[in-house]
């Protein structure tokens, strides 16, 4: 033993004190506050997600549609409840609200052009309407947020839909953040802030609190737009069952629920990973809520938060959504995390496919930055083309899955077209576990008023 050669020991790593945890503690010991970052959840543990479900397409009991030849409609209409001019989209995929400030001008314009090419919508995000976005986006939704940055009645009146935002999936219950490096002169002017401040927005609307007050606020937005356009209410996925009922009761045309996988330009790290429920659970709770107050189909449902592929989108539709918002996926189509300008990723301390440094304003590919040199790395027309291609690809994926399930309309996808691969996902969605005909545990598990099921 004494004279044996040195053998490298097997390193035993703790699953509790992981490398990222250790680094986080070291970081806080320097910083003195919580850490900010961008992007989506970076949780190590797998969570219930759309990946836990599979479609069971037609075979003998049902007839599939012939691809390309037999039409499968993707037309999507939002806002039929009260609006005189509901929004009509060519696809159920929409671009979620991401602000000019979080994103560069080029990114915003590229997304607008792509959305128009594909026949869908974009959203202003927090910070007001960019004239360039209104010019290039045929269907533009105007967000009214707690910050009210850049809120302009003339812009509001020119929008195709108004979205009253209560919160978002990445950081429900808190306000927006834009760190000083991204509060450029132009952003500062639009938001009425001193340039270079660490912008922290309020977490609540300044002029109303609670769904009972919201009744009057929704009425105000309708009166301001002469009842023409749909009013959306957007929330982060927390007490989804209760919140969706309240939003619908308060008069929303469309309810938007953003799951915990939702992305952000900047948020405290701890909020992104430890608040909100997964999108899979959120869509099921939201649908049950609308059904219980008999408004399913009257009030439309948009689901957001980590929608990555046509499979995710199709499953969301099957479980009850009328449309899905994409954020992170659209940015990735623009070039986010692309293996180019690799040295600049390294300068940020990261690499392509692992970058989540949107909050720094040093985005190597010019998307989440206000720096003109970096922004120039995202020429608008090429970027728009990439997103257009991506959206077309997603739309055809959804159609393909729908056709395979025997549907001539993607909105005819149902939970009965799915099976669950895990016990958890079966309980959460009420979809039978594979190999059985029954949902495991009788899910969904929240309180259903009629059945008097146990409280969720």
């Amino acid at each position, binding site marked *: 033993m004494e004279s044996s050669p040195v053998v490298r020991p097997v390193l035993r790593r703790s699953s509790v004190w992981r490398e990222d945890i250790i680094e986080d503690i070291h970081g806080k010991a320097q910083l003195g506050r919580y850490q900010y970052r961008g992007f989506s959840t970076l949780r190590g543990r797998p969570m219930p997600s759309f990946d836990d479900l599979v479609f069971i397409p037609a075979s003998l009991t049902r007839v599939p549609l012939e691809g390309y030849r037999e039409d499968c409609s993707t037309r999507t209409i939002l806002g039929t409840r009260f609006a005189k001019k509901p929004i009509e989209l060519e696809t159920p995929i929409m671009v979620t609200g991401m602000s000019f400030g979080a994103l560069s001008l080029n990114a915003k314009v590229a997304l607008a052009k792509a959305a128009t090419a594909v026949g869908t919508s974009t959203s202003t995000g927090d910070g007001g309407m960019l004239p360039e976005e209104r010019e290039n986006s045929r269907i533009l939704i105007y967000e009214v947020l707690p910050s009210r940055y850049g809120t302009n009645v003339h812009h509001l009146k020119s929008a195709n839909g108004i979205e009253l935002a209560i919160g978002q999936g990445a950081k429900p219950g808190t306000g927006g953040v834009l760190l000083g490096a991204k509060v450029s002169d132009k952003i500062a002017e639009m938001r009425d802030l001193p340039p270079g401040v660490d912008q922290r927005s309020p977490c609540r609307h300044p002029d109303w*609190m*609670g769904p*009972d*007050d919201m009744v009057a606020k929704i009425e105000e937005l309708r009166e301001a737009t002469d009842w023409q356009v749909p009013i959306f209410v957007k929330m982060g996925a927390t007490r989804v069952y209760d919140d969706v009922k309240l939003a619908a009761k*308060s008069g929303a045309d469309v309810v938007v629920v953003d799951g915990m996988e939702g992305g952000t330009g900047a948020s405290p790290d701890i909020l992104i990973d430890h608040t909100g429920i997964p999108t899979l659970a959120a869509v099921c709770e939201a649908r049950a809520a609308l059904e219980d107050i008999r408004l399913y189909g009257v009030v439309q449902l948009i689901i957001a938060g980590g929608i990555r592929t046509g499979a995710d989108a199709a499953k969301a539709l099957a479980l009850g959504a009328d449309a899905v918002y994409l954020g992170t996926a659209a940015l990735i189509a623009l070039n986010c995390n692309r293996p180019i300008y690799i040295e600049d990723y390294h300068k940020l301390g990261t690499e392509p496919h692992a970058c989540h440094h949107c909050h720094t304003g040093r985005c190597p590919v010019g998307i989440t930055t206000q720096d003109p040199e970096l922004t120039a790395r995202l020429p608008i027309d090429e970027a728009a083309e990439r997103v257009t291609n991506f959206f077309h690809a997603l739309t055809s994926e959804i159609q393909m899955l729908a056709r395979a399930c025997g549907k001539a309309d993607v909105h005819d996808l149902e939970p009965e077209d799915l099976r669950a691969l895990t016990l958890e996902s079966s309980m959460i969605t009420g979809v039978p576990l594979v190999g059985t005909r029954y949902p495991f545990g009788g899910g969904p598990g929240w309180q259903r*008023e009629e059945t008097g099921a146990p409280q969720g």
Partner: protein
Amino acid sequence: MCGIVGFFDKTGSGNAPIGKIMLRMLEALCRRGPDSAGVALYGPATNDALVLNVKVGEHGDFREKGLQLAEKIRHFARVHQASVLGEYLRLRLEWDQGVRQLQKQIEALSEGVEVVSLGKQLEIIKQVGSPDALNHTYGIDSFVGHHALGHTRMSTESKVDLSHSQPFWAHGIADLASVHNGHITNYHKLRRQYEQRDIRFYTENDSEIIGVFLADQMEHGMDLKDALKASLRTFDGSYSYLAASANTLAYAKDRFAYKPLVIGETDEFVALATEEVAIRAAFPNETISTREAPANYSHTWSVPQEVAVNY
């Protein structure tokens, strides 16, 4: 989330049309609270009898159930009057032991029985549905009295049914009732503390904790005024609430001013409401100046009691 209203006749005449006033105020707030409607009406006190409104059950023939229940109650209390209206058995009876004891005995008689209100002057009438429907079933518009509370409900997290609707009687203290707008966020923590002391809860509605708290404080010797002040230090979350006893109407508002409460006062009366539109609907021709109640504050209006009340 909801609409709350209150009315107090400062003249003490006992003849104010409190039923009509409550209905007009509640109708104006319907949109805030479309799920349920309820009122707590304080009529004139006559002798020492207690008035009880008892919910007879969840379903079935309420009339039959109610009368059967009245029969059983006659075995242990001197019942002067018993009648069934809608979902309620209304009793006028004499009882000289503790209020909690009477309630316990009545509720033990059958499943789903709940004493919804108890007092010498207080009557709580509430149900799922609109104020108009409430009036249609129970004839609220003919009530006269001293003061009243009202509530229209938009359920936040708990069930929509009669028991979960407001106003809530503060079980254990005759004539004490409350209505609440907002959401008390340390309800579960407080509830567990009370349950450890065997205090019973009837719903999962956070608003119920207000009556439980006030009753507990008052049973330990505090008066209503101080109990309200203590509540400002105890409750977390959002609340504007009104409370009333036999001769008092009061309000309390949380320290962050989350929920609205408008006060309209003249020499003759005080009207409180979540929104001024309710005050204007009930008093269209009065010149009343209105103001928002201040945050982190409570206030009471009282008249000298007509009849000595022994709890």
